[in-house]
């Protein structure tokens, strides 16, 4: 029987409070447009959610590893066998735009980059 969990983590997971700047950073990483008013509203809401989840840390002793998977399974594999793919037309059907059999996406870099 091998180990059933990851090694213990290095330190406590205290939630220090989430700032308006952090919400703005997350929004940029997610390419979401968030207004100033929304930032003001979201920061305290996210903090409330994280604080609620963080209560788990109160009952987890130092020897309890963080849980990444809810079921104690390892090594779920599939054999290396090719199976039919989607027809290209079906694959592209849900795309906002397509061209030459490919997904068409907006400009990646700004013109001045």
């Amino acid at each position: 029987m091998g180990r059933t969990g990851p090694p213990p983590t290095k330190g406590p997971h205290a939630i220090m409070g989430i700032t308006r700047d952090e919400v703005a950073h997350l929004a940029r990483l997610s390419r979401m447009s968030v207004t100033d008013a929304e930032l003001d509203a979201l920061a305290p809401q996210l903090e409330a959610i994280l604080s609620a989840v963080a209560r788990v840390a109160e009952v987890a002793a130092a020897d309890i590893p963080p849980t990444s998977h809810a079921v104690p399974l390892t090594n779920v594999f599939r054999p290396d066998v090719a199976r039919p793919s989607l027809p290209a037309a079906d694959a592209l059907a849900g795309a906002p735009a397509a061209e030459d059999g490919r997904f068409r996406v907006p400009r990646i870099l700004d013109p001045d980059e």
Partner: protein
Amino acid sequence: MSTAAPASALPSYDDAIARYEPVIGLETHVELGTVSKMFCGCATAFGAEPNTQVCPVCLGLPGSLPVVNEAAVRFAVLIGLALHCEIAPWCRFARKNYFYPDMPKNYQISQYDEPLCTNGWLDVEVEGEIHRVGITRVHMEEDTGKSLHVGGATGRIHGATHSLVDYNRAGIPLVEIVTEPDVRSPEVARAYVDELRELIRALGVSDVRMEQGSLRCDANASLRLRPAPGEPDAPFGTRTETKNLNSLRSVERAVRYEITRQAALLDDGERIIQETRHFDEGAGRTSSGRSKEEATDYRYFPEPDLTPLELSAEYVDEQRAALPELPAARRARLIAEHGYTARDLVDMRNAGVLDLVEQTVAAGAASPAAARKWWLNELARRASDTGAAPADLAITPADVARITVLVAGGELTDALARKVIDGVLAGEGTPDEVVAGRGLAVVADDGALTAAVDAAIAGAPDIAEKVRGGKLNAVGPLVGAVMKAMKGQADAATVRGLLLERLGTS
């Protein structure tokens, strides 16, 4: 401003390395040669029509779930073992979150702080000297899609109006092999990639075609002042990472260029900016790949859709036992058993005949040298004349072995052997069948040969007299006359012996 080439002229490479020591590390991505993708059953064939090898999993459609390809894990373990790594008894996949259209999920499944393989090494030989390159880690991940950038200059992303994405490659299993910053010259960097490619080819886990992108290399390079005698090494300088080098030559050239570029900046008292750079093969220069994107923040976390890997010691031992002979061991064996030189092995490998030569020796060639000679000098040239690989020629190692035996036994001359090869390649059968069918055997029949010798002597009495007088070298034209009369089907050394005997000088 030090992202572009420096203002002053670049120093020569020799001048740069006289003062600065390069510190180089390499990251190599290798596409594994599985039949299906890393997490779904889509095929992995190169060159298929765009978006014909995609499914809900590799397109990241809602509700789809990835499942790990067993062969991809096994191949990655084989690579780790061949690189003398430790194999993690327990590890997880991780999500690398980033927003870029080459990954439809907006994250790449990779490994982060729990790589499958760690702490190995690979020995690399350059000009007779062994350099040990430490392997930091080998981890598994999935390849990204391919983008075509439209509307800009020559397909560049800069200035493009939009991009078109093909996800056939998205989800093909990759390993990323990361070295320690142990490499100290562009030549060793190149040799490392070359040796790694040979190793992976020998394992049979990837076709390692750099030109098709199944092996791609990023080179990290920095400079530090060479210490005065007796002084400790200086700390590492700031590095740059030149991405997507797609040939051995590019690896060497890009690193060489970075060394001169960074040396010029340091000479001017500038700082090196840590950044990714791109290598322009045509110009032989690197350029900044920096964009206004924010500092990377991949927010890695354990992939919840995949279970952890827990590889038992028995499983790892089984894979270790399944390792084939690796290139370094093979080279040592070929040198010891067959008497080849290291140079011979490089020549045979570069000509694509090393396997064939070894098979020819195994098939009973007259000697390893003869097997090498016929494949390297004759057959490799014929293959390149027709644009084929030597292995695709219509002649087998057993055929070549037979030809070397016939030559060694005096039944064929080299010239006749070439005609036999003509016949085998033309589909006329085995070497023996071609010899019989074309009547190519060396004429050993004394009657015909003796008659031709006598005729040659009678036809050139002046030459015959010189030879009789002791000028043995004068016999050449007589040998030529006999060979002509025999239509090449005699052994020149035998003819020379017969002539000298007849002329009473032997």
